[in-house]
């Protein structure tokens, strides 16, 4: 059983882990802030959120990196540093492992079309019904396929 207080503490820890613009505190400190031992913190966090604190932090950083790359903000190295990675090598490797291509390829593929269309960060945040509309508008489902 997870108490309301534990829920709030785990949520607060998760928000801290998602703060990527500032140097991130070590996990032991975040666990302490949640009044849990490090091992207990990792176990409860993983059970409640479906990924370890480290996996969560990495996922959030890579997601932010993707946005910055697509929007053409800074060099790949700048992006790597600004989302809290200290090594370009490990950033590129992790990015490629998660998204199937290195950050430089991703930028080259996305940035030109985004610049042309004049998209902004809010365009990366669709909501349910707009996703549905876009999904059914993709060529594979267009009416002409059925005629």
């Amino acid at each position: 059983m997870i108490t309301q207080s534990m829920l709030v503490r785990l949520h607060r820890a998760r928000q801290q882990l998602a703060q990527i613009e500032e140097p991130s505190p070590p996990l032991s400190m975040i666990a302490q802030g949640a009044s849990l031992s490090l091992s207990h913190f990792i176990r409860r966090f993983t059970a409640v959120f479906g990924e370890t604190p480290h996996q969560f932090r990495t996922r959030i950083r890579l997601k932010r990196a993707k946005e910055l790359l697509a929007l053409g903000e800074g060099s790949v190295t700048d992006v790597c540093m600004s989302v809290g990675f200290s090594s370009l090598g490990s950033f590129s490797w992790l990015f490629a492992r998660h998204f199937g291509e290195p950050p430089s390829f991703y930028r080259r593929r996305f940035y030109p079309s985004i610049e042309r269309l004049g998209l902004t960060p809010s365009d990366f945040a669709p909501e349910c019904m707009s996703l549905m509309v876009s999904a059914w508008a993709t060529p594979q489902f267009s009416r002409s396929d059925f005629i």
Partner: protein
Amino acid sequence: MRIKLNSIFVDDQSKALSFYTEILGFVPSQDIPVGEFRWLTVRSPEGGETELALEPNANPAAKEYQEALFVQGIPLTAFEVADVKAEFQKLRAQGVEFTTEPMQAGPVWIAVFSDTCGNLIQIYEPPEA
């Protein structure tokens, strides 16, 4: 008009699809890539036509709404089960964390768990007809 679609916000669609199919036992239905995201729905293997869309919480408004309910301990939606206590035992054995263990609310049994995607989900057993 018919009600055939419900949706919940999730923090990561791949993680959500795993939890909703492998742990909760729903069946994947539609999965269409849309840019960075997917139009992703599941349905119940026990019948019924309603689909549940696993919607990305990329929009800050969605994220705020989801988190606010979560810290207040409020379930985002509810699924009906035949036996809350049996479902609770099964899910707990798979590592699911409950915030409310099976309890009776009038004629209805309920329990609440974390769906690992940032939501609390209620299961309920309706009163016997």
